[in-house]
Structures are given as C-alpha cells and as structure tokens.
C-alpha cells in the first residue's frame, strides 16, 4: 500500500511538473491556464508553511524553556516578542508594530551590517595567516588594488584603470562562469526531478 501511494504521488508530481514546464514554455493554450492554476496552488501551499514555521518556533523554544537548556532566557525574550507582535497585529495596532520593526529590528540589523566590514577584513587577514597559497596571495593583491582604486586620489590614475579593468574583465568573467555553472546544475537537477530520479520519489 505504501509503495502504491509512493508511486501515485511520484506520478502526480512528475505529471504536474511536466505540464507546468510545457505551460511555461508555450505561454498559451490549455497548458498555460493549468500552469497558472498550479502556480497559484503552490503559492497558497508555501503561504501555509508560515504557520508551520510559527508552530516550529514556539515548539522549539517552549521546549528549551521547559528543559532549562542553555540560553533559555533568550527563548523567553523571543517568545514574548513574537507574542507581542502577534497580539498587536490582531488588535490592529499597525503603528506600534511598525515602530517596533523600525526601532528594534532595523536598528539591530543595521548594527550587524556595520560589523560585517570587520568580519570581512579579519577574514582576509586570517586567510593569509593560515594558508599562504598563490590564490590567497592573488586575492589579497586584487583586494588591495580594488580598495586603493576606490580612493578619491587623482594621483592614483593607473590604479583606478587597473581596478576598472579587473572589475570589467576577470571579475565579470569569473562571476558569469560561476553563474553559468549554477544554471547548468539547476537544469540537470530539474530534469532529475522531472524524470523521477530524485531520492524523495524512491524512499
């Protein structure tokens, strides 16, 4: 019975996937209408997962508090904050909600964004300290040229030109190469899903 159910769900998933692909490629006709319906159903299902997320959040942190696990005080703060936001939303106090968002979350995230610079610079330093390879050396050299080239000094004309060339040619080519690789891998993974080779179909 379990195998039959698995087979049915696999056939259904593969069938919907192929119809959606044809609909997206053709863009017209009966397939396009069906594709739109499937996409809408997907969006609704994805929206429902937010409820699962909230249940997960409350479940994980309630358990942490009850078991007095390390950091349980932070879990109390988290649950209390979540409850306050939900209650404010239910009461229709959108202004208070926005004030909380702007005053607390955005401020804290901005502070974190400020820390990013130090994490990155320290990371580059650590890269050279731990493993002096030719790629690491090249990385540091390019990093210095890019930083120097961004400085507003008229004397640094040559550095500015080198920086512009680096960004336009090797950096751009490398970035496109990586993105092309990801795109190819995405196509192959998609095909694996469409022809039923994905692990979730088999187990």
């Amino acid at each position, binding site marked *: 019975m379990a195998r039959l159910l698995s087979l049915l769900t696999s056939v259904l998933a593969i069938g919907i996937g192929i119809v959606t692909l044809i609909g997206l490629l053709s863009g017209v006709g009966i397939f396009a209408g069906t594709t739109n319906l499937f996409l809408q159903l997907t969006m609704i299902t994805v929206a429902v997962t937010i409820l*699962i997320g909230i249940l*997960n*959040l409350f479940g994980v942190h309630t358990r942490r508090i009850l078991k007095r696990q390390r950091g349980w005080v932070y879990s109390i703060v988290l649950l209390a904050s979540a409850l306050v936001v939900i209650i404010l939303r239910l009461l229709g106090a959108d202004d208070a909600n926005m004030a909380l968002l702007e005053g607390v979350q955005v401020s804290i*995230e901005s502070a974190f964004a400020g820390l990013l610079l130090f994490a990155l610079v*320290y990371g580059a330093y650590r*890269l050279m300290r731990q493993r002096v390879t030719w790629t690491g050396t090249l990385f540091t050299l390019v990093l210095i040229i890019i930083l120097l080239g961004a400085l507003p000094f008229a004397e640094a004309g040559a550095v500015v030109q080198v920086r512009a060339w680096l960004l336009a040619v090797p950096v751009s080519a490398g970035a496109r190469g990586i993105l092309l690789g990801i795109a*190819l891998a995405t196509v192959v993974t998609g095909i*694996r899903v469409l022809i039923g080779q994905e692990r*979730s179909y088999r187990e």
Partner: protein
Amino acid sequence: MDSTIQVLTTVIIVFALAITVLATQVARRRRDSIPLRVVPAYEAIPILVGAAIEADRPVMVSFGSAGLGGSSTLLALASAELFYQVARRAAIGVTSPVLTVSDPSALPLGYGTLRRAYESRGRIERLRENSVRWYPSGPRSLAFAAALMTMMGDDRIAGGILFGSYGVELALVLDASARRRLPSIAASDQLEGQAVAWVLAEQSLIGEEMFVAGAYLGDSATQFGSTIALDTLRWALILALITASVLVLQQPVIEAINQFLGGG
C-alpha cells in the same frame, strides 16, 4: 516569452535530458571506471560528522534562505540531498544534527529528509523533535545570521555546514565559527556569499559543486549519472563559448594580420 528564447530553452532542456538519461545508464554500468574529481569540501564532511559523533555534539546544517516554491527550489532540493547524507551518517550517533532554515517552506523538506535518513538506519526513535528549526529572517537575513551565531554556543555545535542561499551575512556566521575554532564548510548560490565562503570558511564549494553532494557522499548511480551529465554539459558550454569567440574574433584578426603584412 520571446519565440527565440522559447526555442533555445527547449533545445537546452531536451539536450540536457538526453545527456542525463545517457549518463545515468553509463553510470549504472561502468560506475567504478569513471572517477570523480576531488572536491576537498566533500572529503571534509564525513570527517566533520565523525568528529561530532565522537564528541557527542550536533552538526549544524543550514539552508540559509533556500526554500521551495521560488527560484531557489532546486537549490533547496540539492541542500536537502546534502542534509540527507549528513543525517544518515550522524544517525549512528546519539545526538542528531540540527537543521536551520530561514524560509518556512524548507521546514517540511527538512523534516522529511531527516526522517528518511533516520529510517534508512532504522533509528527513527533517536530523532529529536527540535532538530529542524525555523529562524525568521529580516530583509537582509542578518537576524538569521545572529540566530546561528548564538546557536553555536547554546547547542554546543561541533561544526557547521552552511549550504544554501546566503549573502554577505555569511561572514558573521563564519567569523563566529572561526572564533570558536569550529570547522566550517560553506557554499552559496549568491556570488557575494560564495566570495565570503571562499575567504572565511575552512572549505567551500563553488558554483555547480553544490548540486553534486549525492554523488560524492552517497552511493546512488543516478546521482553519479547526473554529475557526469553536468560535467558533459559544462564542457559542451565551454566548447560553444570558445567557438563563438573564435567566430567573432576571426574577421578582425585576419584583417589585423593582413594589415601587419602590408596587405591592407
């Protein structure tokens, strides 16, 4: 969609389909005779999981903002395959791995993957209910990064595998990991995240390497076939790019040579 793009997309999909089917058949018959190139990050994962089992501490796997239903759906599936391989290895230990996601649509995927991994080892009773966790992220995922940073200490994490969609916020997590002297393996589909991973993580995966976890860590012939197909398609793309470049540069180069030789 423009008709040219429609035709091109169809050609690419049909070509990739043919290569994938063919490569899977080849992989089923002659798997041992085709070696995979060495990817250090995949070699480090079993060592990391083994060390975590010995220390009785959990491995943290994170999908970042990869989730189902959007442009990162296939990345989420690739991340789930890696998580399956990690969880399957970790299932022989006492402590189950911890999966963190910031997209709630990845939660059911994570639960299902973890359950299948433990079932495959016959140790479903060992599964901890709070092993899959959702940390809601703000607009820049910095809240998610902050959650991972604190989790490393609170849950006594043995090491982190950050495998999914991340931007520069990955730097904060990897920096915290390095300060705690925890091993880290990172990969992202975003360029900023990849750059940060390369600099700050102990091991990193670049580009399409993220999508071949099943072939490197598992024993499935179909996964192996996909890797061969991917390599074939990559070489086909390289050849196409070189051919296009030669065709574009052919005329100006001939003109330049003629001019040099005094013909023009």
